[in-house]
């Protein structure tokens, strides 16, 4: 086969393989949590959305299926880690009940933010189990958020992971010879 034709087909196959509709993504809607209970899963989903909410810059953690990612990670984690998270979620729920006498999931957005402000108070120097849970939850949720194609494209504006004939490099006007 002519080399240029071969290259053309190689690049074409990458483009085809990267059409989002062709990815065999999990069935997020029908997903049954495997590490957490249904109630814990809904709480985690609400907690992730409070951490990384939908706003004018793009979708939030709920649309990115961050809770799915976290449940799968916990499923393959040690029992001690899964227990830390379960205890942490129970701690969040207790905090919401104490402040607003209702579950975190049914709290209003400002109420959820108030609970999260309490959770985040010691994130730079965590002291107790709940603090440690929050630090770990936040880090893993951020990883999960940016692993989502939806977030990469609609929040970050990233259009890569595709086949390009050339790489333009920097096109910012501040640089005298941006193409170098």
């Amino acid at each position, binding site marked *: 086969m002519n*080399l*240029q034709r*071969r*290259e053309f087909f*190689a*690049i074409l*196959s*990458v483009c085809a*393989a990267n059409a989002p509709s062709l*990815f065999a*993504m*999990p069935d997020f809607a029908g997903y049954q949590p495997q590490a957490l209970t249904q109630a814990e899963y809904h709480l985690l989903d609400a907690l992730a959305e*409070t*951490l*990384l*909410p939908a*706003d004018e*810059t793009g979708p939030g953690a709920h649309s990115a*299926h961050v809770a*799915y*990612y976290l449940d*799968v*990670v916990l*499923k*393959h984690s040690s029992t001690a880690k899964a227990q830390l998270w379960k205890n942490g979620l129970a701690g969040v729920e207790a905090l919401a009940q104490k402040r607003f006498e209702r579950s975190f999931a049914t709290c209003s957005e400002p109420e959820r*933010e108030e609970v*999260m*402000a309490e959770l*985040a108070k010691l*994130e*730079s120097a965590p002291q107790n189990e709940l603090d440690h849970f929050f630090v770990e939850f*936040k*880090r893993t949720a*951020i*990883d999960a958020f*940016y*692993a*989502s*194609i939806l977030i*990469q494209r609609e*929040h*970050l*504006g*990233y*259009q*890569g*992971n*595709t*086949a*390009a004939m*050339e*790489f333009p*490099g*920097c*096109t*910012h006007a501040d*640089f005298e010879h*941006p*193409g*170098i």
Partner: protein
Amino acid sequence: MQRTIYDVCVVGSGPGGGISSYVLANAGLKVALVESGRWLKPGADFGGHSPIYEKLDERLAAQRSPLLSVTDFSDHNHFTPVGDRPGHGLLRAVGGRSLCWAGHSLRFGPLDFKSWPISYDTVAPYYAKAERLMCVYGNKDGLWNMPDGEFQKGVPMRCGEHALKKGVQRLKAEGRRMEFVPLRKAMPTEFHDGQRAKCHYCGHCMNGCEVDAKYTSANTPIPLGLKTGNLTVLSGSMMTRILTDESKRRVRAIEFVDERGSTAQLECRALVLACSTVETARHLLINGLANSSGQVGRNLTSHFGLSVSAFFPQLRNRDASNDDGTDYYHGLLSGLYWDEPSKNFAGTYQVQCGSGLHPNNPRIQYPVGFGRALKRELKEKAICSANMNMQGALLSSPKKFVDLDSERKDRYGLPLPRVHLHYEENDVAMAKDMVATSEEIIHAAHGEVLSKPKEVTADALQIDYNHWVGTVRMGNDAKTSVLNADGQAHDIVNLFVGDSSVFTAYPEKNPTLTNIALAWRMSERLAEKAKRGELG
């Protein structure tokens, strides 16, 4: 047992073994390439284009990283670490570690060969041959100790790298000696008449190139060797013994276990070991060969480093739609301490610089806070940051070496290697210098330091486990070196080494291009000696 005779047996199919097989087969010799791993299929066995969510459950269940990567085939438990967190990137597959390298291809310069038994001028023609075959891209930068090569069209830098370059230019204007240049890598940027597709700038190079554009032993020299009709590849075959004549001064065969578990002997007129710096030393130690100097396993060194990251507010409004390019690092801080050595440490370092968003790995930070403010900050940091990754040459000393573990054995009953790494004052002093220099550059570029090590101690240093060199070094004196200047053992006339274990000394530059150039030269010497009947 089966009995087969070859002119040369090459063990290991990584960067050095791959090129040796091709050069020797092309010279008309009958070559057997013995590789413990199997052939991998790009796009099926590895391929970074798949989204992380797609196979998250399946991959975590298999105790793999979320991303489908060729490094899944690495064997991380193969060695026993001793001291300061050494690592060993043994990748069992046809092509070895050439499958997961980033392609950085920098010539060593005249200064770097100062203590070697060969000079830059001796190696230069082999660099040129290697660059042509590998399709190395780059710019003509005119740096005296990182000479230009035979390049394909260079790949531009991103905005973050340009910002750092501005900082370097400002410091140079004040008299500082340093350079900032675009990186050079082994990926075709132009249509060519070789084996591989043109790079499509997806940025997944180190996960394994899905369309095989990046140079690997498996996609270029081994197929070329097979085309000659002189090369036989024995994949899934592990060498278990080196057999010599009674004098132990001539190899006559190797014993290996094939993929079905059968043991066989492979007789050869010459043996090339290209198993990796750690593994080649291990096999020589196990077999008690080529070690009259006592230097096998000694003089181990690698690259080490740490990172400093920068934030450039001036990049807030840049176009960040596609920063992929050719993996993360597009810029290189180089030329440090070439002209005038540091007063605080021996050797030098370079700094690989990258920036921007990256598929499945946007290099995010973890700022404090939550909600909309956190989201805004995360986005801004991802778009406006740059990372400076130090690559320093570890001081070679008696504290760093490879030997055999008397307790742990592999599935063939062979002792596993121990890798001894102990950072020394010189290493820490070099790292401190890197942090200080990086901060100066960032400030000169009107940026802010986003992250740096809290304290530069041995605990903060990270070893590059793919860059080990020097356990079987070349030298003119048989009392202080294992190999002569041709990569031939002083003690055994028909034993040659084709991996990076041959390095006499180590500069800051990446090892693979030099490994390939030296293996090419060694193979030509071997073929000439074989034709002249000088291999016993």
